[in-house]
């Protein structure tokens, strides 16, 4: 069971209180009806699913109820950072050194 730092509760909480909510920084287009079929496909269906550093959304559903974002290494499961929804996406280069996916590419 992972420990996840909730940026709203300002402390680490057990994974049981959280729910994974897919890839982060996929914003709904403001003019969604103007999107081409290809653009809509990219927005709604296509996900990066990387090996290594991943940006993902979590919800502290059995805690404060907030959705927030996290940077996690999908190989080691280690969280590098969690931050409030709406905040800027942290640069992957900041974590590349510590990520297993970076040096252990298949």
């Amino acid at each position, binding site marked *: 069971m992972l420990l996840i730092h909730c940026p709203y509760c300002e402390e680490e909480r057990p994974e049981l209180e959280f729910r994974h909510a897919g890839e982060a920084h996929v914003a709904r287009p403001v003019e969604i009806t103007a999107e081409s079929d290809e653009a809509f496909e990219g927005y709604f269906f296509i996900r990066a699913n990387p090996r290594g550093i991943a940006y993902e959304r979590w919800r502290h559903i059995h*805690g*404060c109820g907030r959705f927030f974002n996290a940077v996690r290494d999908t190989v080691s499961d280690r969280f590098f950072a969690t931050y409030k929804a709406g905040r800027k996406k942290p640069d992957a280069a900041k974590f590349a050194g510590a990520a297993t996916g970076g040096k252990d590419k298949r």
Partner: protein
Amino acid sequence: MADVANRDLKAMRREKLAGLSTTRERVSVTPGPPAARLALRAGEDALNSVSRALGVGVPRKPKTSARAKSGGRVALWLGPDEWLVIDEDGADLPAAAGWAKALHSAVDVSHRNVAILVAGDGAETCLAAGCPQDLSLAAFPVGACSRTVLGKVEIVLWRTSERAFHVEVWRSFAEYAYAFLAEAARDV
């Protein structure tokens, strides 16, 4: 028209865990009495106004609670814009909140939740059977509160003293939560 006005509301009320109680050497698990409850939502800018209206300073710090200066009213921090206000005397909380001019949402949830009181030297151990949070006094001091999980259900946990916790659980999960704690109490 039937004579509805004279009906005794108290007699009509069927409390969820009525009649249940578990007492062991080091811990007791008992249902709490009915209370008024309010799901309060408000932005930062509304907190002073809402606090004045409710007569209790809603806490801004995560995992903390605040009690009214007098009477049995408490506001539990659940999220950055969410509080659970409990009034043991059954006051009309939506009406009280209605006095606040600032923007907020006040929803009566008095019957949605059921309280279970876990008390005694073994209270912390009893809850640790199903709650994954660190409940030591250092991590979860008196007055601390948090939405969390107990076994397979969600609860709001509030520490009322070194040796006592107040558990809030949704009505239909109350039977499970009570049975879970009663079973855990056997191993305290």
